[in-house]
């Protein structure tokens, strides 16, 4: 079969292995398959940011994309593109918030990590403004989701990050009042579907679920009611887990298993016939708090806010080793190979190595936060190759390998 030229181009331009296309990277797993995390690290470059934010940077084809919000009420919204190699700013776009910008003091209007399909960047802010750009910063479309649905907001701030599955951008605008999820046509920005969702504040992010080439891609919507799997193209229900779930810490998918943040961690095996997923195991003792878990090298990793990493066998849920790091944490861990990167709120980057069994602290690096501005690191890092990308309210850093002492 011959593919048309546009289709070939699209394939060529879609995400590469070294890309980090959304919150917690490829598949929202927190894992970069081809990355190699150095134990000893240093700051390779610093790029100033024009406004606050805890949204993670994403990386597409050597370009970093990041959002920010500035002004006394954070009503000025920014999207920035940087050269990942040099840290040079390539372009910046600004728009004005059309929704409410109130958040609790620690959070920010730029709380939602943008996402990309390798050709386009979709940026969402807490005020429910959603903008699509091509990689060169040309505007494709805009939505003001509070202008569309006026009671959709959260006075503590929204933080759910969008995902793009196929040609659908999936957003969860879930809150105590006008609560919904939307499937938006990635090309036009028009609604494909709209689902009413539980009227409860919800900061979790949708998950892409596509265990193998034979199965239909799904989007998983997590809430206090449980997890609803939908067809991203139509919004129709595929299956549902009704055992309740966190409204803060998002679950993770690995190898066709959903590790739900539900009653601790509950491992679920979804079916293709619409039936409720089978429960593989449940570990009530693992409490991810506000931080999302991660699956790497057959282990489940969960970090509580105080800084204790708890691990479990991903197949059985049996507890494995624990390690106390220096907390507190808000950012979720990311990993590659047999190493994890965790950055605590005061800016201490910690690399954990578990290649020899139990995890050990292999290296750390104190990042120079602006303490006079009470800066914290709340955003999850991005990984690519041997590089780690981290942002604060004022700067974006590339962290690389330090020369051996």
């Amino acid at each position, binding site marked *: 079969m011959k593919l048309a030229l546009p289709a070939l181009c699209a394939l060529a331009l879609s995400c590469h292995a070294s890309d980090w296309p959304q919150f917690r990277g490829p598949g929202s797993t927190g894992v970069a398959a081809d990355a190699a995390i150095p134990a000893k690290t240093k700051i390779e470059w610093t790029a100033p940011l024009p406004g606050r934010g805890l949204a993670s940077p994403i990386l597409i084809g050597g370009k970093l994309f990041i959002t920010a919000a500035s002004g006394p009420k954070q009503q000025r919204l920014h999207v920035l593109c940087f050269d990942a190699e040099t840290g040079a700013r390539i372009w910046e776009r600004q728009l004005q918030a059309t929704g409410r910008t109130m958040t609790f003091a620690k959070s920010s209007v730029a709380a939602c990590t943008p996402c990309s399909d390798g050709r386009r960047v979709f940026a969402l802010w807490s005020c429910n403004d959603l903008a699509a750009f091509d990689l060169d910063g040309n505007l494709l479309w805009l939505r003001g989701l509070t*202008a569309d649905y*006026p*009671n959709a907001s959260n006075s*503590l701030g929204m933080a759910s990050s969008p995902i793009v599955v196929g040609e659908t951008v999936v957003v969860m605008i879930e809150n105590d009042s006008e609560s919904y999820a939307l499937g938006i046509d990635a090309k036009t920005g028009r609604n494909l579907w709209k689902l009413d969702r539980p009227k409860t504040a919800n900061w979790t992010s949708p998950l892409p679920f596509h265990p193998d080439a034979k199965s239909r891609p799904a989007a998983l919507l997590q809430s206090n009611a449980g997890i609803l799997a939908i067809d991203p193209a139509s919004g129709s229900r595929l299956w549902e887990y009704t055992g309740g779930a966190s409204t803060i810490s998002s679950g993770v998918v690995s190898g066709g298993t959903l590790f739900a943040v539900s009653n601790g961690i509950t491992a679920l095996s979804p079916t293709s016939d619409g039936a409720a997923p089978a429960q593989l195991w449940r570990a009530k003792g693992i409490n991810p708090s506000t931080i999302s878990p991660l699956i790497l090298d057959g282990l489940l990793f969960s970090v509580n806010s105080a800084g204790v990493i708890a691990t479990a066998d991903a197949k059985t849920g049996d507890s494995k080793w624990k390690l106390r790091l220096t907390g507190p944490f808000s950012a979720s861990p990311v990993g590659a190979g047999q190493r994890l990167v965790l950055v605590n709120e005061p800016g201490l980057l910690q690399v954990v190595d578990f290649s020899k069994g139990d995890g050990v602290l292999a290296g750390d690096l104190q990042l120079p936060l602006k303490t006079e501005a009470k800066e914290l690191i709340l955003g999850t890092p991005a990984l690519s190759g041997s590089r780690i990308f981290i942002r604060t309210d004022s700067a974006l850093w590339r962290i690389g390998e330090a020369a051996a002492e």
Partner: protein
Amino acid sequence: MKLPVAFVLFAALAPLHAALEDSLKSLVAVEREGRGNEAANTAWQDIVKAGPSAIPALLAASGKGSEVADNWLRLAGDVIVENARRTNEPVPLAAMETFLTDLTHSPSGRQLAFDLMRRADPAKADAIEPHLIQDPVQALRRGAVERLITVARKKSGDEMKAGYLEALAAVRDEDQTAFLAKELKQLGVTVDLPSHFGFLMKWHIIGPFENAEKKGFDTAFPPEKEVALEATYEGKSGQVTWQPFESKHDYGKVDFNKPFGMLKEATAYATTTFDSAVERDAELRLGGKNAWKVWINGQLLFGRDEYHRGQEMDQYKLKCRLKKGANVILVKCCQDGQKEEWTVEWEFQLRVCDSTGTAILSASK
């Protein structure tokens, strides 16, 4: 026959101008739920291609559509200016300044003119900013106020006081106002914050009515059917009547816990009459962390059923039309059943102002 140069130029440029106007109309026409996005996308590219010469028409289009449409225009202006800076192409700064200083243009267009000017020529924007001290656009005067504060801080005694008072006369933002009130207090000047912001302080309140299982929010208790201050109704635990209540809070908080006790699962109402000197557009700006509804002259403006997620001044901006004379404002405020310490508050604050945040005071205050 020779045609006049001006005619030739007009004939050549007229189609371009018409095309630009059509493109701008496509951006202005975007509607709810992304309707019009496809046409806007093509139009946006055409406007960007037109380059800096499109800026005056682009500014004039701002404010003619929705806030989302304004963002389409803003982003076109952004790219035009960025491209012009990259290629050293001049942007029409004089026209942008003329647009900015003409108060008949829309607030969003004037704000965009200043923002684009700041990106194109920061020094020029810096030179203009102090002259925006009385600008009707709140965001535009903020920078000028900040400059006055910065200058005054470096002085002392009467000079400092005079500087702060000059800033106070112009300030609209809460954070700057709070700073000035605090500094002036130390210099012996008490700022009347309720009057500065236009908070409504004198109310009649009634309650409690029921709000078990949060059902009170959608229940139309008698005050929603009539505001009769002499009336008596059956409430949550007995008969209830309207009673006068005056807020003593600097930011006009009406705290229902004071007259009714620390109740849970309860609904209360507050009403006041605002005397407007003229018929005019206005905003009722409300802050509160309980579920609420607001009516003016019997018309529901908005309601929101969120509990205890946070409160700040001007949290919600409700556009309304004041009629000349008495305007009856009614606020419904529901407390839920949460027991945590941070769910004690059962209150709201409400002020009347114009779209720039400038207080509108009752004519019969």
